[in-house]
C-alpha cells in the first residue's frame, strides 16, 4: 500500500474567544510512515500540543478544526463518525499525555482500567484481557507485574505511572502513537529509561510515533524526522540530521544556539531576543519577523514553504547550508 501511515494537509485548529480568533494551529502539514519517529518541536504556545489533539479529534469547544485533511492509512479522519473515531482511538491510534494522571483513574486499580481498555476494542474474556494487560506492563519494564496490576495509581512513582500510561497505549499494538511531552516532568535517569523502552518498542513493532517536545536534545537522540513549530505553523522540517546540522530557518538556528551545551562557558549564551508573540497579537507576515536579525520588508508578507522531498522551511532569507560549522 502506498498510503502513508499519517498524512496531514493544511490543518487549522482555531479557538473562537470573546477577544478574537486564536489560530492555535494555522496550516500544518505532516507525513509519517510506519516505524518512523517524528519529533514535533516548539515552545509553549506554538501549537504543538493542539496539533496532537486535533489528529485524534480531541479538541474541545471553543476550539474547532476548521480546515485541513487528516488521513490515517488513507482514511479521512475529519469526516469519520464519532463512533469510528472511538474505534480507532486506543485501538489503532493511541495518545500518551505529559501527566499520566490524565490517562489514569485514581480510584480504580490499574488492572481494572487496563482490562476495560482491552475489552473496549476486542471481544475477549476477562482472564485473557488480564493476561494481555500483564504482558503490556512487563513490556514497559514494570517489575513484578503480577502483583502491581492490582495496585492503584497513587501507589506508583511518577516514572512508573508514566510507564503504566505507555503500557495502556500499547495494549492494542496501535499503528500510531502521539506522545505529548511524556517525559518532561521526569528525572533524567527515569526519562532515559522510558526513552529506551519507547525506542525499542517502535523498532520492534513498526509503529509510527509523533513525539511532541520542547527539548531539542531529546528529539535529536530519539527521532528520525523533525518538524519545528512557531506560532501555529511548521517553520522547518526534514530529517534530524538536516534540521539540526544545517538548519535553514533563523528560528531553528536560534533554538539550537541557545542550548547551554552548544555554548562556551564564559561567553554570553546566544539568545533569541524578545518573546514569542501572543496568540491574539501575532504580527503580519512572518510571525518570527520581530525577533529575527535577517528580517526585511519582504517578511511583511507571509512566507510560503520552500519544500523538496520532505525537507522544507518557511523563510524569505533562509540560512545558507554551508554557513554551518
Amino acid at each position: 500500500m502506498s498510503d502513508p501511515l499519517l498524512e496531514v494537509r493544511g490543518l487549522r485548529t482555531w479557538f473562537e474567544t470573546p477577544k478574537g480568533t486564536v489560530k492555535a494551529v494555522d496550516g500544518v502539514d505532516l507525513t509519517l510512515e510506519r516505524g518512523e519517529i517524528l519529533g514535533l518541536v516548539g515552545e509553549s504556545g506554538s501549537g504543538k500540543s493542539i496539533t496532537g489533539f486535533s489528529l485524534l479529534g480531541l479538541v474541545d469547544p471553543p476550539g474547532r478544526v476548521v480546515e485541513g485533511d487528516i488521513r490515517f492509512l488513507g482514511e479521512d479522519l475529519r469526516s469519520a463518525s464519532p463512533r469510528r473515531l472511538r474505534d480507532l482511538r486506543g485501538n489503532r491510534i493511541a495518545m500518551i499525555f505529559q501527566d499520566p494522571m490524565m490517562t489514569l483513574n485514581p480510584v480504580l486499580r490499574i488492572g481494572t482500567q487496563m482490562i476495560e481498555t482491552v475489552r473496549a476494542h476486542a471481544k475477549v474474556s476477562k482472564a485473557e484481557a488480564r493476561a494481555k494487560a500483564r504482558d503490556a506492563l512487563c513490556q514497559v519494564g514494570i517489575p513484578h507485574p503480577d502483583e502491581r496490576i492490582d495496585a492503584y495509581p497513587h501507589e506508583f512513582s511518577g516514572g512508573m505511572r508514566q510507564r503504566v500510561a505507555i503500557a495502556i497505549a500499547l495494549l492494542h499494538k496501535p499503528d500510531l502513537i502521539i506522545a505529548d511531552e511524556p517525559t518532561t516532568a521526569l528525572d533524567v535517569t527515569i526519562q532515559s529509561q522510558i526513552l529506551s523502552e519507547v525506542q525499542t518498542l517502535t523498532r520492534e513493532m513498526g509503529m509510527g510515533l509523533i513525539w511532541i517536545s520542547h527539548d531539542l536534545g531529546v528529539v535529536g537522540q530519539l527521532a528520525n524526522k523533525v518538524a519545528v513549530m512557531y506560532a501555529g505553523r511548521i517553520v522547518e522540517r526534514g530529517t534530524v540530521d538536516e534540521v539540526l546540522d544545517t538548519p535553514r530557518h533563523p528560528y531553528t538556528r536560534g533554538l539550537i544556539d541557545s542550548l547551554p551545551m552548544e555554548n562556551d562557558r564564559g561567553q554570553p549564551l546566544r539568545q533569541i531576543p524578545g518573546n514569542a508573540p501572543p496568540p491574539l497579537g501575532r504580527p503580519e507576515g512572518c510571525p518570527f519577523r520581530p525577533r529575527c536579525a535577517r528580517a526585511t520588508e519582504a517578511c511583511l508578507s507571509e512566507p510560503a514553504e520552500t519544500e523538496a522531498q520532505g525537507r522544507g522551511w518557511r523563510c524569505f532569507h533562509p540560512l545558507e547550508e554551508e554557513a554551518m560549522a
Partner: protein
Amino acid sequence: MTGTAPMIEVAGVTKHFRRKTDLAERLAMRVGLAEEPPTVHALDDVSLQIAEGEVVGLVGESGCGKSTLGRVVAGMLPVTSGQVARDGKDIAKLKGAEARAMRLATQIIFQDPMSSLNPRKKVVDIIGEAPRLHGLVKRSEVRAEVERLMGLVGLDPAMANRYPHQFSGGQRQRIGIARALAVNPDFLICDESIAALDVSIQAQVINLLVRLREELSLTLLFISHDLSVVRYISDRVVIMYLGRVVETAPTDRIFDAARHPYTQALLEEIPRIDRRGHRFSSVKGEIPSPVNPPQGCHFHPRCPFAMDRCRTERPALTQASPGHSVACHLDGGTGRPLSEAGVTTGDIPAID
C-alpha cells in the same frame, strides 16, 4: 575576599521531616497502639562550602534534598543537627539586627514565579515592599528605586503598575530576580529558577544572571536538575543523591573526569543534539524513597559496580584530587575514573 572563612559553610547538616502528631496519637504511641510517623531523611550529614564570588551548581534529581539544602542555607528551615555558618558565624545563633542583616543578604529566587508573586499586587509593590519595610529606601524614593531595579533586570519601568499575570513567564522570572535584588543581597540562591522557561527565554535569563553576578559581585548557589545549564553557569558543581553529597569538583573536572558512578550516569543522560540515534540505557531502577533509604551507599541498588561493602558501609566524602571529592568505595574510596567506566566522553566538548 574576606580572609579565609568561606562565605557559606555547611557542616554536617542533617535535616529530618516528620509529620506532626496530635495529642491522641502521642498517647496511642505511648501505650504502643500506634507507630511513630515515618521520618523523611531529606539531608544526611551534608557538608558544603561556598567561597565569596563563587557560583556553585547543586545538581540532583527530585527528592535528593537539593531544595531543602537551599532553604537550610537561606536560614528558612532549622537544621536537625549540624550547623550552617555565614562568614564564620552560626546562622542559628544570630539574634536581632544581625539575624535580619543575614536574611536580607541571602535571597532565594524560586522556580515558579507565578506562585511566588502575589497575583493581587502591582509589580511596583512586589519589588518595592521589602526595601521600604526594611527602611532601605524612603517611601518617596520607592518608585524610583523600583524603576532602577526593573531596568537592571531588563524590564520596561513603564510596566511598574501592572500585575504579574500581565507578564510572560520570562518577564515574571525577571520580576522575581528584581525583588530578590531589591534588598542588596550578596548571595543568591536560585532554586530551579529557569526550569519552567522555554529554551529561548531560558537563555535570556541565564545571561541576565551571569551579567548581574558580575555587575553586583554576587555569590550564587544554583540549584538545578539540568547539568547542561549548570555546566555553563557554575565554577564548581556539587552532585547530590538521596540526601547526601556524592561528588563535588570544579566544573570542568566534573565533566571531564567524574568519578562517582551516579555522576557518570547523569552525564551520560544529558540530552544532546549532536548525539543522534542514541541508544538510551540508563541506570536501572528507581530513586529510592528518602523515608526508607537503602543501607550503606544510597546508590548501591542501582550501581553497576556495587560490591558487598557498598551494601553495608557508607562511603565517606574523600578527596580524589585538590578540590575534587567523591563518596564511593571504588578505587580506594575515590570512585572510578571516568575513562575506565566505559563512558564515552569523546563527544563532550572541551571546556576552555
